[in-house]
């Protein structure tokens, strides 16, 4: 599968995502510079973590307006796969490709730690290798991961099945939510939401970093399935002739 990793000035997980796709998944990967207007034929586009343009405004706010994002939007509208991780998720929110917004973490501090996620959708191109209700352990590293939206829109998001990952306790029982940040939902995200997709299911954003736990030597491979699912989906699509080379 041809994969593209977007590089904004200030992206700092671009090499990590590239490494997993290229060396762990053995895929064809290229970097997509922020001022490029095409995606060089990428079928899976990943927006990596980091601090795009320094994030001196709101996280992701400036990146959402970069030339490459116009191409990413077209790609998403055509049904192409877009995965936003951490800062990439923030960019997708700011670009309007996913609903809602991020506030600063409940305790107003950057947090780097493992969290537990419950899988609520396993029918997406990104999650087909996961099982429903499965609990994943993934690391987070962010200062703005406190997902927020109005109660009505959160209801609608849940009703439409767009919540893909939720922070939970290690045994899968619910974490605190609705602004009550606790040990298991440390950034205080509304309804403990950690990752969401668009209505069509081809755009996924999540705060934790699956690329940081995709190799045995790092002591955790819980993130690998997300890349595997995406790549396998790509292979199937290619075999069926759908999509083709854009």
């Amino acid at each position, binding site marked *: 599968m041809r994969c593209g990793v977007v590089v904004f000035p200030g992206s*700092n997980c671009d090499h990590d995502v590239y490494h997993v796709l290229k060396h762990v998944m053995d895929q064809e990967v290229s970097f997509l510079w922020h001022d490029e207007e095409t995606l060089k034929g990428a079928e899976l586009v990943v927006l990596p973590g980091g601090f795009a343009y320094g994030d001196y405004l709101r996280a992701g706010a400036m990146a959402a307006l970069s030339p490459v994002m116009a191409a990413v939007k077209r790609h998403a509208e055509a049904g192409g796969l877009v995965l936003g991780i951490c800062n990439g998720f923030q960019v997708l929110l700011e670009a309007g490709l996913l609903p809602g917004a991020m506030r600063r973490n409940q305790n107003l501090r950057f947090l*780097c730690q493992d969290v537990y996620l419950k899988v609520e959708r396993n029918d997406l191109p990104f999650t087909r290798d996961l099982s429903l209700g499965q609990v994943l352990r993934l690391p987070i590293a962010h200062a703005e991961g406190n997902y927020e939206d109005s109660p009505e829109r959160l209801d609608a998001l849940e009703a439409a099945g767009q919540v893909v990952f939720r922070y939970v306790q290690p045994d899968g029982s619910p974490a605190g939510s609705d602004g009550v940040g606790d040990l298991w939902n440390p950034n205080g995200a509304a309804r403990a939401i950690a990752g969401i997709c668009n209505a069509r299911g081809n755009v996924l954003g999540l705060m934790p970093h699956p690329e*940081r736990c995709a190799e045995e030597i790092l002591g955790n491979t819980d993130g690998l399935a997300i890349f595997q699912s995406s790549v396998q989906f790509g292979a199937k699509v290619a075999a069926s002739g759908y999509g083709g080379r854009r």
Partner: protein
Amino acid sequence: MTVLQEPAVSPELARSQGMTGEEYERLRKILGREPSYTELGITSALWSEHCSYKSSKIYLKEFPTEGPHVLEGPGENAGVVDVGHGWVAIFKMESHNHPSFIEPYQGSMTGVGGILRDVFTMGARPIACMDSLRFGEIDAPRMRFLIDGVVRGIGDYGNCVGIPTVGGETGFHPSYNGNILVNAFALGVARRDKVFHARASGPGNPILYVGSATGRDGIHGATMASESFDAGSEHKRPTVQVGDPFTEKILLEACLDAMRTGAIVAIQDMGAAGLTSSSFEMAGRGGMGMRLDLDRVPLREPGLTPYEMMLSESQERMVLVARRGREEEVVKVFRRWGLEVAPIGEVTSTGRAVLVWHGETVADMPVLPLTQEAPVYRRPAEPPADLALRQRAPEVPVSSDPMGDLRRLLGTPELSSKAWIWRQYDHTVRTNTVIGPGGDAAVLLLKGTPSGLAMTSDVNPVYCYLDPRRGGAQAVAEAVRNLACVGADPVGLTDCLNFGNPEVPEITWQFREVIRGMSEACRALGAPVISGNVSFYNETEGRSIHPTPTVGMVGVIPDLRHLPESCFLAADDRILLLGNREGAGEFGGSAYLRLLHGIEQGLPPAVDLAAEARLAALLRRLVAEGLIHTAHDLSEGGLGVGLAEACFGRRMGATVELPLAAEADLFSETQGRAIVAARPFTLDKLLRAAEEAGVPAWEIGTVGGPDLVIRSGGESWKATVADLHEVWSTALPKALGL
């Protein structure tokens, strides 16, 4: 045309910039005339303690700087060691104490920024940071503000640039109430044949300025860092630089890209004393001269004088020498990253630095006499008058409640969990972190090879205060032990030598003795010094900090397959105490005496370097052969604290039987010891290996259950791991009032 209005130069003006009368005379002699205002500013910065090492140079010569892995020792921006498979590690540690005390957030930010530039300016991609922090008592004035600011600054900078902060240490002691320490370490990796240097060569080659424009921040920062604090130090805030991690990140990527063009001859970051030290050092190292056209220096605001341009410490700037005719290739790379780049001059063969501004020569000075022939002092050294009193053997109070004392020790900020701090640092970015903060040593992948890099930072300032020579040796020995616990062989160390005012004989004596102790340990344990930094004048109103020679040591683990952890992993594992038990009962400078009984007295524990070498070799062998699950070094707080820490990782208890002479021996800080745990059936092999290595070993207990149980002489003490963990993990945030 603007006419330069500058103060008249005089010995008095020189004194106000930190130059002595003799130094002023020396400058006049070198120039053969009175210096101009700009020349005086340049010289006072170059000859400041911070830049010239004038009080430390003669002692630093004692360090062993060569070893089988060392490719480049002290002298460049950072040291270079061979770590195998065609890779080198480039690392250094540097202090940012004074700025961090004045303005903690910007001070610590720019400390991290500066050390990262030292590493990537040599062509290495930074892959890890550590920070060694010393704060005063948490209730001291401004201390909570300082702690919060320093931690936020380190986090905001490293997190944004995307370099994991994988280790470090944090201590608290009243001697830092008026002068905190922020020591930042960075390590990068490069291919062995792709290391860059800051040596100008090739007359006619253009000098390029890249990165942020120059502003008025940090002017005379180096001079400020070479003075003591007094009550009015608040007014020094404008001498603190302001950091911009985003610019650093793109500067890092742009520099690494530009280096690949092959069009760069030499490159150097602008750190302390900004454009002055970077250009003079680069020319000096290459035995060259230079001509700088100051009208071409990118400025944040108009109207900066040559003096301000040369002394500004605006951050995220580099100066480089390009190959003549190929400068466009370099310029293109920096433009692509949206960075300012300007040709500001050229290399000359005259050996002189000529600075031109508005058509006028504002400085014309010989480079070498200013850089390599800076003044050198052998300051008088004398032990403190009360040394005998300090070292008098203390009365060691009996511990009537050893488990209660352990609980109290674990609840002190000093010995408590530092997770509140390191959770705010991204320690997993770059996907190399095998063991992050909280263990004995951090371990990183050397991607594409079976090997790993291990790193640790260590020092016990109380030991150094009570006996600087022993303290210096102990810091090195503990670092070697920490590396050995993950199976790593040391390849080199960097240091940050934080001391008081060297003009006070006691301080110079401390400095000399610490270096003596460190050098002895470095030689005995095979850990050469490859880079480092000296920070003097860490005192406020005449009160000096404890001598704090922070050691940052790096080692190589040949094979990561059998890496043990610092905590207990499996029930029924047998626990062994390795190393010196004979000297049990050494309490001088111990956490037990200091934190529970307020006694800071006595000779610190003896350091037996030969025994340390044997222990380290044994530990490395046990790891290499995959014989152990757990290895944990014993240091502050002794065996009691070491056992509790080993229980915390997986919340797994242990039952141990100790032949204690006295209950308090649980907290003795006898050196050269570690605990290991392994499957019962490997016990014989372990004991045999220990015997072969000449390391005493005792089976002291078994892993398992919810409690830590300690038995001795028919008595038994017990606590739940959950309770001890709660005390240990919440102590720091509680003390900070969070």
